[in-house]
């Protein structure tokens, strides 16, 4: 065992494998009133995020697509995390989650309880993989802000 193996176990936690094998909310949504496509051309990762938003609340969230374990698990965990939340909280979570993954090693990172999303914090030790974990979130952001273009994490 070496440091890299420890980091690897931090990256590929059981919750990541679980959500990769059985992604939650993996379905197109017929009643969606917001949706956006995300694409990471370098990896070939591709997904669509669907939202049902009314009265300032994300009532339902789902996604379909394909990608690596990190990107699939991140999308799955994201849909769980934002369902039933007010838009302002979702936007704040997007900012904090992004900061969590991109914080320098010696920085404390944002102080908040990330719940299951904390499982993705190990990605920060793998700079080449941060874009995998953030693709779904950038796509979510585009869906919420109504930007029609495809989200890219390049």
């Amino acid at each position, binding site marked *: 065992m*070496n*440091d*890299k*193996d420890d*980091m*690897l176990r931090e*990256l*590929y936690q059981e919750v990541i*494998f679980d959500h990769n094998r059985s992604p939650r909310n993996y379905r197109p949504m017929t009643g969606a009133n917001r949706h956006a496509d995300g694409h990471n*051309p*370098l*990896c*070939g*990762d*591709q997904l669509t995020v669907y939202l049902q938003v009314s009265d300032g609340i994300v009532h339902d969230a789902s996604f379909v697509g*394909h*990608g*690596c*374990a*990190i990107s699939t698990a991140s999308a799955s965990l994201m849909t769980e995390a934002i369902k039933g939340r007010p838009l302002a909280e979702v936007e704040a979570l997007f900012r904090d989650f992004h900061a969590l993954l991109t914080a320098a090693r010696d920085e404390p990172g944002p102080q908040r309880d990330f719940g299951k999303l904390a499982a993705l914090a190990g990605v920060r030790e*793998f700079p*080449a*993989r941060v874009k*995998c974990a953030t693709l779904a979130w950038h796509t979510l952001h585009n869906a919420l802000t109504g930007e029609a273009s495809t989200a890219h994490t390049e």
Partner: protein
Amino acid sequence: MNMHTLQSAPATRPALLQRAADFPILSRPVHGKRLAYLDNGATTQKPDAVIEAERDFYRHSNANIHRGVHWLSQHATELYDTARTSVQGLLNAASADEIVFTRGTTEAINLVAQSWGRPRLTVGDEILVTHMEHHSNIVPWQLLCEQTGAVLKVVPVEINGELDMLAFDGLLGERTRLVAITHVSNALGTVLPVAELTAKAHAAGAVVLVDGAQAVAHTTVDVQAIGCDFYAFSGHKLYGPTGIGALYGRRALLDAMPPWQGGGDMIRTVAFEHTTFAPSPQRFEAGTPNIAGAVGLGAAIEYVRGIGLERIAAHEHALLEQATAALADIRGLRLVGTAANKAGILSFLVDGIHPHDLGTILDSEGVAIRAGHHCAMPLMTRLGIPGTARASFALYNSPADIDALVAAIHKAQRMFGTRGA
């Protein structure tokens, strides 16, 4: 191509090369593990001979070329010219004047597109490429098509990674002005029958460019035997420095081509009324070139020729056969690209593990591979996959690297709970 004949060679194994000690970077551990560098299709490592040649140039020989009456400038010019002669020898070009230094394969192809293609092509003219080209042998032609109204035609690829030769014959027509084909597919390792394709293209009246980026380090190349009009390659995939490569162009074609960049070093006389240009190859080398890079490339060429490209090809082919057999034994692993004639490139997919996850886990074991579309997105789309994991071999790889690759794939399968062998 000699690697083809080796397939049917008797059971005596060719002696493997033992040259890893020439490459200082290979002795550095990665993540505490022995480095198994199998990303040679992206770039190769550099032997001491190349590192020292660049260092020596700056320590003992640095000056600008072609313009100094002082001794050092003449010395630097000689070294630069010697490097050009090395490239001529590598490709067996008829003359060193047929060798243009460029930043690499990409710039060489763009040079042909803009200098040969742009003044000549017109609406309805056709450029023929294959479905397995690297983006650098697609996009320059797309730009040229936008500029001239020419049309890009694509020769389909069989599912095993071989070129559809019948379709090639069918697509080759009287409007075909240029055929631009790779010598070796960077994503699949397929070796194309470039001499045969060139002969057919010439019979149809088309000019032929061969992208040799993945070929020059792995097999002997003879542009006169191939018969092609242009041949492009990069130094950094041939154990040389980055930022230097070369274009071979048949003399008659180069002489008839206008400059594509203006500046110093490429002129004969400059006046505001009228400027005249230097003959090729200087005409295509505007500005101070990458002199140290050319010297480093020359050293790289002498290094591989010293070993012998046929021996390197035999070494890599032995590794390819060994790795193909070892990977085929792994349950849940699928090889992508199984053409009969292949260079040392193995693309593969592992059930239930995305190539990027595989790349990260292999890296933790010191095994460096490439994961993704390999700058061949149309080919990946054709094969219906987002990308592959790719191991590519060089002269310094050994069976120990293959063992490390196989062990690391098993580790990934254990971590992902997918079934390993």
